């Protein structure tokens, strides 16, 4: 069975979200969106059937909010949002994230990314933030970010019921140990090695030399991803689906 990189990531995201009651997915996030739709599908198939409340920003159909954009942030503050996804042009070993830019002197950075979106708030408040960044290179996973859009968990007396549970990339899944403020390598994706992860990671992390392989989707999950899930995420991300799942329609 041939499983693509995107299919493996969607399946892994769904597994991370399965314990949740309420999930939101932010801008430019087709893979997290598809993973959340798969988790919702799994929850609906439990006996008895369980609802997973889901809002995909940019979608009209998969949006369970009615009070405007501010509702997402108020919902997070109320403790009603279990999981959210954040990325970054740079992520460092203490889980500081940078969505603004690199090099140069702010604001005239050599490279500029879109901006911090909701990260400067949601990172503090959402209990299961999943850091998601497909590119796994030393240019992204750096010793220290050039700009902190949102700081990783730290013992500074700031109200912070939330924070990252880990970081998912094209190569692996790292859990984040909030007490030690370090990433821990948990699984490496099929076809990749621990050595490859070390070679391409700019920060130190923990983990045994021999870690398990990330679980592959079974035939049922794969059929769901390629069919109904791809069609559902196409509403908000038509170009992604056209490229990755051209046969979904």
């Amino acid at each position, binding site marked *: 069975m041939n499983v693509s990189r995107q299919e493996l990531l969607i399946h892994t995201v769904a597994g991370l979200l399965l314990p949740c009651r309420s999930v939101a997915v932010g801008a430019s996030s087709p893979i997290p969106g598809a993973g959340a739709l798969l988790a919702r599908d799994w929850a609906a198939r439990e006996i008895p059937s369980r609802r997973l409340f889901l809002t995909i920003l940019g979608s009209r159909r998969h949006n369970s909010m009615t009070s405007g954009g501010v509702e997402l942030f108020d919902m997070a503050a109320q403790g009603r949002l279990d999981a959210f996804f954040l990325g970054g042009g740079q992520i460092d070993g203490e889980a500081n994230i940078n969505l603004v830019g690199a090099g140069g002197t702010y604001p005239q950075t050599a490279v500029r990314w879109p901006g911090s979106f*909701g*990260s400067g708030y949601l990172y503090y408040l959402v209990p299961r933030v999943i850091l998601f960044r497909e590119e796994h290179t030393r240019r992204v996973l750096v010793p220290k970010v050039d700009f902190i859009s949102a700081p990783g968990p730290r013992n500074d007396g700031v109200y912070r019921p939330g924070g990252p549970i880990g970081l998912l990339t094209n190569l692996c899944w790292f859990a984040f140990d909030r007490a030690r403020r370090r990433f821990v390598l948990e699984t490496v994706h099929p076809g990749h090695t621990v050595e490859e992860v070390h070679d391409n990671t700019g920060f130190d992390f923990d983990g045994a030399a021999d870690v398990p392989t990330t679980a592959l989707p079974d035939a049922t999950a794969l059929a769901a991803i390629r069919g109904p899930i791809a069609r559902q995420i196409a509403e908000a991300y038509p170009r992604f689906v056209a490229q990755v799942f051209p046969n979904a329609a």
Partner: protein
Amino acid sequence: MSHDWLQGSADDLAARVPDGAKIAIGVDTAGVAMETTRALIRRGARDLHLVCAPMAGLAADLLIGAGCVATLETSAITFGEYGTAHRFHDALKRGAIKLMDATCPAIYAALEAGAKDIPFIPLRGLIGSDLAAHRPDWKVIDNPFGEDDPILLLPAIRPDYALIHAPYADRNGNLFIGRRRDLVLMAQASRQGALATVEEVRDVDLFSSEETAAGTLPAIYIASTAVAVRGAWPIGLGDHYEVDEAHFRRYAELARTADGFARYLDEFVHRRRQAAE
């Protein structure tokens, strides 16, 4: 029908916005007043303080590229799946705009304070970030009702105008917006209210039923309105029309360079008749 609130075109709305005004624009899914944006460029607006509520895309890139913007307050500038904001990046590199980088809920909260006309509002998060480090207008205080609880204060944002686009106005100038409540916040926070374009004016009363009233932006928050058919183009509008992907591809090619961008403005902004087709 003739109404005092209904103007002839988006250009009449843009004529109301003085140079140096603070204007709010919304996210691509909320109903973006692209025709009014183009009209502001045609008018040659200068020194605008652009508040993106809480982020923006093509409208911001166009206004920045055309030299209309002095200050940009936003949480992100993004076209989503449809390319890169080259004019924004170029202006930043040249130091041509003052940037006030924020996070989405900070802009929402500051607009909520604006709508209440209170001077500031507290917000969780942000402390320890470089966003806060670069915003001298934000202050950290100790929660006066708690202990050992630092919290950030944001000054209120009161734009002069909000630029919005909606599917239709009723006969009294109330706007149907559905659940796009961002438009309500933007209009209420603005001192003069919203400058609104609509696809059409319908001879109905939105307050005649609870179902439509719940999705209505009352006319009292609207400074002036004009009809602009496909007024959000090339961005989509809810259930009415989709994003024009081919146009975004064209823009992405042209806006890479200042010359290409100038050609884009000539073709799609200054000659608006062709652009609307």
